């Protein structure tokens, strides 16, 4: 028998970026907010101070920052003909656990999706005709212009360093000419570029492209955000993604919101409490709260007026399925929506090796890079190309952590004297052009519950059925060719093309950008949540995170995830609270 706890206004399931933003916004509105986080408390001086942070083995390879697969993982297969098997350890993506979530170990590359990304279905259909068979791309139901001020808020919260390309409609030299109209510049200047970025910029300009500095959540100078919280200048130590920043230099919930939030009398955080189910009344149309379990195995019933899912996208989808809210998507019948349109990110790279120039990649940072956007979204004519969407190309210098990053030229053996010699000669003298491509939704790629494997509580694991699609393959081939053109002009001795070919492999790390499964849209017939991220079925249930993306765009998701969270918070405050109920009539 679950112990019933005193009710709260809002319960947040998970406490990473979206949970922290939502908590800050709703406590400001005077609501009593409770966040339930299944991982532990984490802060800079205790969990990743500079004295221990630069430890590649511990933090990356031994998964210090990530969800514990021993307790729960997901199962994976490329397609329906295979039996999904558990990912016994993480590989291709690395969901976080504990306070701050994956927002603690991100790189800090903070883009705004392109205006056309939000209307991918209608925009591409208008320009190129009907979408191909099996492609289930749709519009977000919210536009870039509606989100603009929310992007701006997140950039100011985080102290993003960058260069505006479109300031109130006027194009700015040195910025991204393709970006949506910005109401304001970035709060901080771009990071300082190193040798590799300069080579990339030169090569890109030679090709008539417009390189611009990547928007970065690694501080380019000391910054105090609008909440009064301080972020220190980045020291370019090269331990961002997969690590916590020991120096308060990377925007994470702990360095932007928590110092203010944690002291509020109307906010409570319970760590080591995992939500088991979203509970509903007898009508099934109203969430009554959640049940959760603590580390001692005691189960609690937490009543709440509003339930907001703020966990990792894969978790949000799974919790909806475990709670029986909405129908799980079935590609055979085409019915059901929860789990539909699971998308990823399609990445590739071209390495550049120098003869006598040193890239010194250990002088790096997670979002230290130069970018070109000519081949992203619909910034170029796709006629005759056989795909829609695209991606950005960038020269990042993020790290020289040697277990992970030791580039070797074409033809180098995997081990032995030849490998060792190549690693030695190229370790300090290589860089790369990476492509970061969109992932379009297809009917067969999806999430559902696994019929066989269970978590530590005996509940079904999430099952992922995913492979790259024809659109992905054509797109990544195109982007890789464009990257090769730039890489060849960067002054190196030789290049090596690392194309994305073959079946999607769940093991080598690619990126932690898992999207879809709880998608947003214009009607209950095509989406799990409406344009305010409110459940169509249960109007006092909201779902945050990249799970609401109907398909993934070429950019990294965090900026858009945060803007959508601010947008939803604003809607809850200004529309839902005065008149609780569906904010969009079905």
């Amino acid at each position: 028998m679950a112990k019933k706890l005193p009710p709260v206004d809002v319960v947040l399931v998970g406490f990473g970026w979206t949970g922290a933003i939502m908590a800050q916004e709703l406590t400001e509105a005077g609501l009593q907010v409770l966040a339930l986080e299944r991982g532990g408390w984490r802060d800079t001086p205790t969990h990743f101070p500079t004295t221990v942070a630069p430890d590649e083995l511990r933090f990356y390879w031994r998964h210090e920052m990530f969800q514990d697969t021993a307790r729960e993982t997901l199962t994976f297969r490329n397609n329906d003909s295979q039996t999904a098997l558990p990912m016994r350890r993480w590989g291709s993506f690395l969901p976080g656990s504990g306070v701050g979530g994956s927002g603690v170990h991100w790189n800090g590359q903070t883009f705004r999706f392109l205006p056309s990304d939000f209307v991918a279905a209608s925009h591409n259909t208008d320009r190129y005709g009907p979408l191909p068979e099996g492609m289930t791309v749709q519009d977000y139901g919210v536009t870039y212009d509606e989100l603009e001020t929310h992007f701006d808020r997140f950039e100011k919260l985080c102290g993003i360093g960058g260069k505006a390309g479109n300031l109130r409609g006027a194009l700015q030299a040195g910025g991204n000419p393709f970006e949506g109209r910005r109401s304001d510049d970035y709060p901080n200047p771009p990071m300082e570029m190193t040798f590799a970025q300069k080579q990339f910029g030169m090569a890109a300009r030679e090709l008539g492209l417009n390189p611009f500095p990547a928007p970065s959540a690694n501080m380019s100078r000391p910054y105090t955000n609008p909440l009064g919280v301080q972020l220190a200048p980045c020291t370019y130590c090269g331990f961002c993604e997969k690590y916590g920043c020991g120096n308060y230099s990377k925007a994470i919930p702990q360095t932007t919101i928590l110092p203010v939030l944690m002291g509020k009398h109307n906010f409570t955080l319970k760590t080591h409490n995992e939500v088991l189910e979203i509970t509903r009344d007898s009508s099934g149309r109203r969430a009554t709260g959640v049940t959760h379990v603590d580390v001692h195995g005691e189960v609690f019933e937490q009543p709440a007026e509003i339930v907001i899912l703020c966990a990792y996208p894969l978790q949000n989808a799974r919790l909806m399925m475990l709670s029986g809210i909405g129908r799980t998507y079935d590609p055979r019948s085409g019915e059901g929506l929860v789990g539909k349109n699971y998308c990823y990110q399609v990445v590739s790279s071209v390495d550049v090796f120098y003869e006598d120039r040193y890239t010194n990649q250990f002088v790096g940072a997670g979002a230290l890079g130069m970018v070109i956007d000519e081949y992203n979204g619909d910034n170029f004519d796709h006629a005759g190309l056989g795909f829609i969407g695209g991606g950005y190309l960038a020269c990042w210098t993020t790290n020289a952590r040697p277990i992970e990053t030791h580039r070797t030229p074409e033809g180098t053996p995997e081990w032995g004297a030849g490998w060792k010699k190549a690693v030695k000669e190229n370790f300090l003298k290589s860089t790369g052009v990476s492509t970061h491509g969109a992932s379009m939704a297809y009917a067969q790629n999806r999430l559902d519950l696994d019929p066989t494997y269970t978590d530590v509580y005996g509940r079904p694991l999430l099952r992922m059925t995913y492979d790259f699609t024809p659109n992905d393959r054509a797109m990544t081939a195109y982007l890789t060719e464009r990257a090769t053109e730039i890489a060849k002009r960067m002054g190196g001795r030789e290049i090596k093309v690392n194309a994305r070919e073959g079946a999607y492999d769940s093991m080598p790390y690619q990126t932690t950008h898992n999207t879809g499964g709880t998608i947003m849209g214009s009607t209950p017939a095509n989406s799990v949540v409406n344009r305010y991220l409110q459940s169509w079925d249960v109007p006092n249930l909201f779902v945050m995170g990249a799970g609401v993306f109907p398909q993934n765009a070429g950019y990294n998701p965090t900026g858009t995830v945060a803007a959508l969270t601010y947008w939803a918070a604003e809607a809850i405050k200004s529309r839902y609270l005065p008149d609780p109920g569906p904010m969009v009539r079905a």
Partner: protein
Amino acid sequence: MRKSASFLVAGSALLGAVEAARANDFAAVERGRYLTQAGNCQGCHTPAGEEPFAGSRPLETPFGVIYTPNITFDTETGLGRWTKDDFWRAMHEGKAKDGSQLYPAFPYPHFTKMPREDVDAIYAYLATLEPVRKKRPENELPFPLNWRFTVKGWNMTFFEPGVFRPDPEKSQAWNRGAYLVEGPGHCSGCHTEKNLLGADKKGRHLAGGRLENWSAPDIRAGRHGGLEKWSEEEIVEFLRTGRNAHSAAFSIMSEVISYSTQHMAEADLKAIATYLKDLTGEERAAPRKPADAVMTAGAAIYLDNCTACHVSDGSGVPRFFPPLAGSGKVNNPDPTTVIRVLLEGARAVPTKTHPSPLTMPAFGWKLDDDEIAAVATYVRSSWGNSGGAVEADEVRKLRGLLAEGPP
């Protein structure tokens, strides 16, 4: 007989309550609240995380441990039976309600400078607090100090009761600052070196002290003073926000800023700054030059461990990470704080204006005594600093004291 005795007790309790009620007018309570903050009463009378003002915080003194009393108006364990006169005698003369001597860990040698109306206002404020029933533990003082009358002799030697008298030669701001620093603020409690008997050393007023294994810096801000480089505005900023271009507050000063100075009126902080700027120090002899080998090792340790925050040239990131070049704490002749911060780390006080608890990690587990001494020496002898060398033996001794832990 017994009946009348208990009647008397009840009567005096009643009298206390009546006086408290009478004093409970808004202006006096507000003034009392302000002075209670200015005196940081909450700091000593509250153990970390417990009920404010209910006492029992152990104070480490050179003579033993003293537990602070409950100053809420609980009738059994607090001031519930105290009259205004009782309270005045405690503040002004250092005498408890029963006439016994209070230990001078209670800073009555400072509070004696406060006029009656200020003391009455504090009384009025404390009377408005929710009474908390909480009995304090027995003090741990060795003979003969556990005999409270011993303090009588101490008082005869070191204590001069008397309300603050303004210096007509000085400005109004100076006099207000002097009153706040010497009276309710009792700054010299930490910042003045004590003699063997625990009284302020003559001629060392606010020139730095040592307590609870910290060295409190010289806070004289005039010529040759420890804060000579601080402008009045910077002193105000430090007290109001916990940070300024030179430093960040941590440890005991965090409490002072957190409970007290960040809430004080700007004019009062300016007055404190005016007064401190008028206090001059004395020229210091240059310390002996450290050995080259120690400086070389210290430089390597500094480069590998410290520059991410404090920057390779010691300039730090003002208001984020304190500069070490020119730092009063770093240059303090007594290196205790430098060693201790290296061993244990330190957390900058989060304040209303700067809520981030920016924290330096501990190095005690990572660097041995020689390495701590070398990097401390390097920091105290570079970029124009002249704090002087630190010996490994000093590190070893402080580690030992810290290992004993708080009482």
